[in-house]
């Protein structure tokens, strides 16, 4: 019979590098104690912790899901409830480790507390649920029951149940034993838990693998060229920035131009007007912006809120290409653009907004009257790649911005499959204040340091 630490190690053996794991109350809250500081795992709790931590004997300002005082490990972040919700609904969690109160033979489970916690959304948006629990409760009653109490809220999902003597898999189709400790028969197990249960045809003896750390997080790339090497033709690419050169990943834009991927759809506030506006550009120079991609014939379509030059006498590259019929445009109001980006990263398929109702923007879109006001339905935006501009990053990918350079960066980062950040410097993990990190490392895949001698002007 295995002990609680061994059950935890068994659960840890199912994790893979870079997993983001939501930890429930009870046994799961002990899991961070078995993980090394530099392992590429990110834990998330109901209380708002993101990263890793150790349980503290002294009162701190931070608690885990079980109400224990904790000390955050370097590189961890504190978030509010709505950001935790966004991580869940945006499907940024790979595994949910929980400790149910009772499991039914139907494959559903109930929790100890009345109510829901995060369980309804977790079981809906996380595909792999790992239950770590004891076979019997404190009174010696089985935690496995034929029929769940109808008065309690049931949760259904797919995953694994790890106990001290057996491992089960569960799904809406029911429960099956997949591993059993060698000196026990299925019959013994059935007597212990008091229910009839089937074994999986591939059932194996239960063993606890030796805890083997998953390596070290390394997201730092040597150059923009290396970080954007795999952008395919036809990719959707989010490009941060507001209007001028601030908050724009100039070095990555040059890398993307040199890499040469064609037929790109770019999602950005402008489609490149910094060059024609030229705020603060030295005389005789041109600032790098989206125009270098358009001039290089890499762009098929832009989704933007401000695609044209403020002056018709100095049209932008995109404007000229649009007039020549070489590019398509989807015009989006600025607030709607921010909201569509946020939707993409938070699992929102579409939303109703009053912005643009009754205008050309509403053409072809669902409309709805809510409390006498007209709303239109807009959809979330996702991308294959996102290039953003941070100020400082740590090796885990936690990012802070500088002044108004923040703009669309923070809302874009969670919405792309691969987010690449260009930063001024990489600082030692633990340097950035966990209260002030704007973009969590879970949303950042690749980090490139802007070369010291790089000029944003051509």
């Amino acid at each position, binding site marked *: 019979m295995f002990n609680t630490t061994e059950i935890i190690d068994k659960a840890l053996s199912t994790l893979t590098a870079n997993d983001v794991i939501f930890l429930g109350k009870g046994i799961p809250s002990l899991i961070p104690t078995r993980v090394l500081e530099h392992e590429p795992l990110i834990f998330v709790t109901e*209380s708002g912790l993101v990263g890793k931590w150790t349980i503290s004997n002294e009162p701190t*300002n931070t608690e885990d899901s079980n109400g224990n005082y904790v000390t955050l490990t370097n590189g961890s972040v504190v978030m509010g*409830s709505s950001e935790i919700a966004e991580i869940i609904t945006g499907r940024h969690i790979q595994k949910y480790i929980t400790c149910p109160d009772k499991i039914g033979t139907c494959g559903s489970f109930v929790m100890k507390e009345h109510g829901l916690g995060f369980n309804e959304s977790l079981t809906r948006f996380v595909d792999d649920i790992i239950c770590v629990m004891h076979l019997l409760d404190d009174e010696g009653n089985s935690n496995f029951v034929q029929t769940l109490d109808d008065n309690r809220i049931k949760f259904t999902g797919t995953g694994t149940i790890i106990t001290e003597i057996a491992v089960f898999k569960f799904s809406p189709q029911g429960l099956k034993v997949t591993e059993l400790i060698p000196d026990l028969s299925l019959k013994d197990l059935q007597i212990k838990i008091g229910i009839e249960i089937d074994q999986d045809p591939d059932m194996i003896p239960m063993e606890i693998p030796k805890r083997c750390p998953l390596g070290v997080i390394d997201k730092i790339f040597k150059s923009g060229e290396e970080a954007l090497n795999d952008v395919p033709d036809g990719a959707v690419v989010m490009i941060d920035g507001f209007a001028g050169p601030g908050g724009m990943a100039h070095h990555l834009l040059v890398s993307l131009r040199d890499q040469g991927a064609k037929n790109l759809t770019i999602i950005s506030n402008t489609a490149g007007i910094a060059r024609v506006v030229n705020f603060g550009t030295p005389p005789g120079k041109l600032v790098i912006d989206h125009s270098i991609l358009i001039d290089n014939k890499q762009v098929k379509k832009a989704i933007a809120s401000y695609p044209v030059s403020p002056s018709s006498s100095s049209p932008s590259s995109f404007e000229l290409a649009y007039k020549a019929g070489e590019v398509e445009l989807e015009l989006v109001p600025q607030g709607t653009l921010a909201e569509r980006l946020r939707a993409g990263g938070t699992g929102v398929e579409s*939303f109703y907004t009053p912005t643009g109702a009754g205008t050309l923007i509403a053409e072809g879109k669902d409309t709805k009257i809510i409390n006498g006001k007209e709303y239109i339905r807009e959809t979330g935006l996702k991308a294959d790649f996102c290039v953003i501009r941070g100020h400082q990053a740590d090796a885990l990918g936690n990012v802070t911005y500088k002044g108004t350079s923040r703009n669309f960066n923070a809302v874009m980062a969670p919405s792309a499959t691969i987010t690449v950040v260009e930063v001024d410097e990489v600082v030692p993990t633990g340097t950035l204040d966990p*209260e002030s990190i704007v973009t969590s490392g879970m949303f950042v895949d690749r980090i490139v340091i802007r070369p010291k001698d790089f000029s944003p002007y051509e």
Partner: protein
Amino acid sequence: MTGNKLYTSCALAMRDIVNGCTIGISGNEGGGEPLGLICQLATMHLTNLRIIYNVPVIKQTIGSRMIHQMISDDKISELITPSYPPSEAFDVNTKMVKNTVVNFIDHSYLAEKLRIKGAGLGGIFYSSDSIGDKEYLGLNMDVALIKSDKTDTLGNTVYSGSNRNYSPIMAIAAHTTIAETNDLVEIGTLDPECIVTPGIFVNRIVLTSEKSRID
């Protein structure tokens, strides 16, 4: 607009709360509960309140005791919460405690409904396989009672550790946000890059009294 946001007591900051109000209270398992404001609310002669509060399940807190007291005093008609602690008075069949209806909502959906309201959206749909086309609507909130670590006189606010929880999202969603802060600081003290809740979302500020800190 220059209006002074500082109030010398919880009673003054909360005196215009009326019967039937929807009130959000921040907190998670005791962390980030505005104790002074909750205790004041429990003493007020109000009825038919709709309370949005994440009732602690692991430990009994002053907040949960006050909510139970208010339920006993028949002041709350509806409690909207992700979790409800085991209570002998809670009837799982009717979802009632005494005369209070308990409406359970998952944390994720509660947070999102508050954000829908705060962001001025009409409703949202999740990209989901199974539940599909269920629309989530905003949740109206008249007053938010939130707990701040540091607030400047403009209402700019930062939090401390896991005490952050529902405070920022409730501040955005509510018509009137009352922040109980541990530390009232001069304008300019807080780093503009690190302020979590901008002052535009905070209408009234009360300093935590030593008494409620000890409690």
